[in-house]
């Protein structure tokens, strides 16, 4: 059974790449939007652009993984293709994991372009091990968040609207633009219950000359967020087929 599920996860992710991800709308949300957003902030407050790179990468992770993830499950439920997947010898968790993996792989491709591009252009020398330790779990965390919010609602567009709330909240409160340490203390506490805070701070530490080992703790925290999002998503999707 586990072999059937692993095969299912792989081929669903592959199919989703072809069907939804490497298309103009997903690329636009995943890569163009974060770059435009960061540039807008930079032009408003010109300074050292290098300071904004961790935020840019974090936003790329967030937007690319959730670009299509937030709608594909509901869309497929509506047109009946998700049911088609469940007629195959694959479990509901495997179908959902396949969807999450698809979002994470697309996010990985977009984030790699932004990370490599910005490090080359700006001459940065990050610790690549730390970058991977932060980026990889973050990709799965935000892809799972997209899946969770998607299965919470019934309509395709409701999911996209619902997802904008945590997305924009995290942009402003997770240190993407404005450092968490300079925020009022009440907001700082709030920032630390947002997963993007750990992504941004972990990425910032990966770009320091002597990187901080707290990155390992952030990886662990991000993995906990992954479980917090993925299990309820599986539970909610299963309920739709009771």
């Amino acid at each position: 059974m586990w072999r059937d599920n692993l095969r299912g996860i792989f081929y669903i992710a592959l199919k989703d790449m072809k069907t939804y991800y490497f298309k103009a709308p997903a690329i636009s949300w995943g890569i163009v939007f974060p770059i435009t957003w960061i540039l807008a902030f930079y032009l408003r407050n010109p300074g050292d652009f290098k300071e904004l790179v961790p935020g840019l990468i974090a936003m790329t992770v967030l937007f690319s993984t959730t670009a299509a993830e937030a709608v594909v499950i509901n869309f497929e439920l509506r047109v009946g293709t998700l049911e088609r997947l469940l007629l195959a010898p694959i479990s509901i968790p495997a179908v959902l994991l396949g969807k999450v993996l698809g979002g994470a792989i697309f996010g990985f491709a977009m984030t790699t372009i932004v990370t490599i591009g910005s490090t080359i252009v700006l001459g940065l020398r990050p610790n690549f091990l730390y970058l991977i330790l932060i980026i990889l779990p973050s990709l799965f965390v935000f892809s799972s968040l997209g899946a969770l919010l998607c299965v919470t609602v019934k309509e395709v567009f409701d999911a996209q609207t619902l997802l904008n709330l945590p997305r924009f909240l995290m942009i402003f409160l997770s240190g993407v633009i404005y450092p968490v340490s300079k925020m009022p203390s009440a907001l700082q506490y709030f920032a630390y219950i947002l997963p993007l805070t750990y992504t941004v701070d972990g990425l910032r530490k990966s770009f320091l000359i002597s990187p901080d080992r707290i990155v390992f703790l952030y990886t662990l925290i991000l993995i906990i967020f992954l479980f917090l999002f993925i299990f309820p998503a599986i539970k909610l999707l299963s309920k739709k087929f009771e």
Partner: protein
Amino acid sequence: MRSNIVIKVENLTKRYGEILAVDHISFEVKEGEVFGFLGPNGAGKTSTIRMLTGLSKSTEGDASILGMSVKTKIAEIKKRIGVVPDISNLYDELSAMYNLIFMAQLYGVPRGERRKRAEELLKIFRLYERKDSPFRTFSRGMKRALTIAAALIHSPKILFLDEPTVGLDVVAAKSLRNLISNLHQQGITIFLTTHYLEEADLLCDHVAILVKGKILVIDTPLNLKTKTDKKTLEEAFMEITGLEPEVLAIEKGR
């Protein structure tokens, strides 16, 4: 002979809140036969298929397919059955060929056989010329045919067909009935739900008549006509169910 019973349903029940969609039904389907599940809309046909194919859980009762319980061995069952839902639910953006290959991947058809099997089915269903066209460009009849082909990609022993000809024009429906007859001749057991009674009369070895979640009768179409002294299965159906002809006409028109 009990050994060739491939579907055995016992007291299967489905409740959606207060609504009793399927009410303690029991029946058996023999290997190689076409078993028709007849009834008007809302009779519980699709709910029954969903429980038998693992898409929903029964509230009470159990069913075994090929000797395995749908409650405990559904993954094993799914490898041996093909399901054609009441809507043609393949991927619009993907080509006919990719849709079939994707299904072959999900069902674990060996890598070397996937394309060959897909080509074979596209030829059987006369869709080979359109193998590279996206599913969304197909006519309703072609979509139905490709959905059946997708359900056959892993060479199942039992095929569940939920309203296969609904919404098709006369020519497409006839062509699809011929395909179903051919599958029957190849020895595949077919579980067919339909509210087109002439279709059931033509294709089925046995039929079960379902109304409001309950099975009223199970017999051969010929026996039902003989017992009710009617010329067509439709007339026999009216007699058995007591449904007004106008009601059925409305149901058929939906």
